[in-house]
């Protein structure tokens, strides 16, 4: 949705909040609501009860190790179902509160399925203007999953992610731009988000060398001339140095970062640990 909707000038679309963690990250819920508010779309909350947990519970010998590691108990299907039900209720309540506060339509659903399969089905029902918001903070090893999502879920046009250190959703909207061709649609998405809180936009030009950066800056300055509350910054980032890109983003102290998947900032291969360790705001990742 988002970037594409913005490009197409359409307002339709849907945010699918994929809740497959019993304790969703608070900022992930907020980010999902904010995107829906910016694009006047609805949220569909999809709480997935991982069917594999029930398979586990069917084994008599499988035990559940507590989060503290200090105790273990026999895993039962009933206790799993009860815990998941309570977790779903809690997540729904919180989401309803957030959605109501900004008048965003909300639908909630609880399914027992394979998480990825459930998401794929949910997106295919409406598609193609879906943005999937993940409730669980991403970690360094998340790249394959992201790739899978973009590859396998055709209805997904973007992903909303939060890192484990996410703590802020206010501040300028940072657009990490690696391809000048994507500027208009990313900018429109950024403007919609910026308009919500009346904040500025930072266009962070990212290129692997100074010459490319220089060329990009020239083009960007011409394209963005005369715009208010917009600032251009730049960073030289090679694909082999994700930590540099992560640091460049952190220093912007943004409230939301928009970038494309598969570039130097969020590569489609490799480790996301530097980004996870430094990103303090939500990330809107577009195809």
């Amino acid at each position, binding site marked *: 949705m988002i970037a594409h909707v913005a490009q197409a000038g359409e307002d339709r679309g849907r945010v699918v909040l994929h809740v497959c963690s*019993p304790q969703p990250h608070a900022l992930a819920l907020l980010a999902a609501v904010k995107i829906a508010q910016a694009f006047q779309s609805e949220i569909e909350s999809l709480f997935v009860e991982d069917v594999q947990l029930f398979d586990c519970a*069917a084994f008599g010998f499988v035990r559940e190790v507590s989060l503290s590691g200090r105790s273990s108990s026999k895993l039962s299907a009933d206790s799993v179902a009860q815990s998941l039900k309570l977790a779903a209720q809690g997540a729904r309540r919180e989401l309803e509160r957030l959605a109501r506060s900004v008048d965003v339509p909300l639908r909630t659903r609880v399914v027992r399925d394979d998480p990825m399969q459930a998401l794929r089905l949910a997106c295919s029902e409406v598609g193609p203007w879906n943005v999937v918001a993940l409730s669980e903070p991403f970690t360094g090893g998340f790249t394959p999953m992201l790739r899978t999502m973009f590859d396998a879920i055709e209805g997904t046009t973007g992903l909303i992610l939060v890192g*484990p250190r996410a703590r802020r959703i206010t501040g300028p909207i940072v657009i990490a731009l690696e391809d000048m061709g994507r500027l208009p649609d990313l900018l429109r998405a950024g403007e919609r988000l910026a308009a919500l809180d009346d904040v500025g936009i930072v266009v962070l030009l990212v290129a692997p060398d100074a010459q490319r950066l220089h060329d990009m800056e020239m083009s960007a300055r011409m394209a963005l001339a005369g715009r208010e509350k917009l600032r251009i910054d730049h960073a030289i980032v090679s694909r082999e140095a994700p930590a540099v890109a992560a640091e460049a983003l952190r220093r912007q102290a943004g409230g939301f970062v928009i970038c494309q998947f598969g570039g130097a900032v969020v590569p489609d291969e490799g480790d996301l640990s530097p980004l996870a360790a430094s990103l303090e705001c939500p990330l809107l990742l577009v195809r």
Partner: protein
Amino acid sequence: MFFKRSQNDALVAKAAETAAVAAGAATPLTAEELRRVVDPASLGFASTNDLEPISGLIGQDRALKALEFGTSIKSHDYNIFVLGPPASGKTTAVRQQLAAKAAQGPTPHDWAYVYNFDAPNRPKALRLPHGRAKLLAQGMIGALTELRSVVPGVFEGDDYQARRRAIDEAFRSSQEQAFEAVNMKAQQQNIALLRTPTGFTMAPMHEGKVVKPEVFNALPENMRREVENKIEALQKELGDILSRVPKADKKRRAALTELNEEVARIAVHEALDELRAAFADVPEAISYLDAAEADLISNIALFLANDEENAVVRQPLDTAHDVRFRRYMVNVITSNGDDGQTGAPVIEEINPTYGNVVGRVEHIAQMGTLVTDFLLIKPGALHRANGGFLMLDVRKLLLSPFTWEALKRALKAQMIRIEQPMEAAGLISTQSLDPEPIPLDVRVVLFGDREMYYLLVAYDPDFARLFKVQADFDDSIARSEENDRAFARLVASIVKEHGLQPVDASGVARVIDEGARLADHRDKLSIEIGRIADIVREADHWAKAAGRSVTTRDDIERAVDEHLQRSDRLRDRSLETFEQKIVLVDVEGSKVGQINGLSVLQLGDFSFGRPSRITARVRLGSGRVTDIEREVKLGGPLHSKGVMILWGYLAGQFALDVPLALAATLVFEQSYGGVDGDSASSAELYALLSALSEIPIKQSFAVTGSVNQLGEVQAIGGVNEKIEGFFDVCKQRGLTKAQGVLIPKANVQHLMLRHDVVEAVKRGEFSVHAVSSINEGIEILTGVKAGSRGSDGRFPAGTINRLVEDKLRSFAERGRDFARKNGEDAKR
């Protein structure tokens, strides 16, 4: 009828006529004796412009010496009680004296309350050199403001963030590595590691998916056992890793805390460095700054937190009003030496409530609850006066609940302890602030009247112990050339203080006359400054109204008259009652057993005299004078005492060897209110003597004076008003040249009569007689000799005393005959 007139009565009347020759021998007082008048020429100046205004009081040497002593002695219990009449200028004079004394004294320390980081409900009192408490308060605000801008930058800075990430990463990576190792190990063994809502679980896996139980159960038992064993081992391993997480996280937090403190310490130390240098000479301040620094370091997050309120108004609060930093503020309780003022403070608390004197802990309403902190401690007058002088009005102090006791407690303990009044009284025990007491070194100066002073001495044992200096201000001073001149300078200072036009010598002389009148004594001057100032100010008004640029005698005269006129509505009504014969008083002719007494009515600050008819009737009786006023409970104890004294006089004078077979009634005619005082006792005795002697009393006279058992006439109060009261009635009826007043000789010194009275006396239209004994008085009143006992022990024939004695003897004989006859009748 109780008795018949004796056969001798005609003879008696004749003798009286003979003795009347002696009448008129008593000489009335001269006009000069009725009023002491200052000759303007004798004053030696033209107007008050020629005079140096006087500073302070005149003729109050005793009080001023006491003040000097009280303010000089170095002892906490030598507080001062200034007693004297109101509006005598004593407060102003004492204030001036204290200010002069205070200016020579050392400037006291400043005091401030600061947060007690060890015991938050016990704020610490900080003593600082004078003038520096505000500097500390401003310095703390400055340091905090600096920290507000510096700290977020430091903590957002690359250096800090890098080090923090390193700590986080060290923790995270070790955990993740361990967790990942287990995960990898599990995957290698085809075991899936899954997250449950409350923990983790493991299960056999095939091609990345958990094996269905029916598939697993189809495996041979040894294979199933093998998988179960693997899972069991992996679960144990996972449990070990997870159980290490809290410890590792604790270490991580400790490392982060250490890092935060290290970064914060530098910032905080730098922010407070300047302040620390400025207060290097004040160990208490340095100690406080150390504590504040330690607290700031451990609470550095205060400078990083987002303030919701600030966000709403989108305008950052200034540091001094930011609730996050309240504990680092300095509550300046006293600041001395500001604006270059030096010396000890002189504080006057005009509303001495408990809080205003001792200080208070205020509260603010927050979410329906009253809360407080050390910044809401408000100083009282004791704090402000600490090291100097505190002036308080004792009446207001005593009327304010709890305040007197609190003041005494503070003076005794030499400490100011701020407590809730109810808490101090032990009535409530709500936990509130318990501010550290502040040492007290103050000299309290209480102002009150004499009655209040003596009541306190009598009823409060602490009072005499704490207020050992009595500065007793007199309400009048003796007349002398020097004091007259000083009084004139006092008028000059009133003129200067109120910005009035000058008063010429005649005006000043008239003010001095009025001063003597206010003092009720021709040889004294009242120093009731308030009233004198009123006269001068009002005269200034009349002078200006008349277009004069100098206030003269006429203006002073008018001011006095106008003042009287404004207040004498009741006197006019009273005079009307005489004119309309509603109140019966004779001012001419003669009557037996009837006399004009004089009384004074006091209405606020105005008093006036008026005559009252007193009558006496006598008959044979058992020796009793009936005071009708007392019988109907309209007579006060002093009046009753006076009447009983008459009886003593009669018995001693006339009935030494015979029984006093007399019954007499005495009454104040047309008196419908209470009567008290003994100033009418001589008049009552004259009436009684007239009734007994049957010699009429001239109604052209009025009498005042008390009498003792020996027949001596004694001084009374309000003599001027009484004479003027009778004069007014006589003037209303028409002066006959025979009218006058009898006063005690001892009251001559008090005479300061109105000009019109003096003028009438000068013209011979009115007279004032001073008498020292009843005999003198009765002769003037009746024109008949009183008579002294001769060698035969008898009074000369025809004298009043002889007639009285004869009447009493005849009563005694008749009484005896009556008793005998009754006895015989009883026998028959």
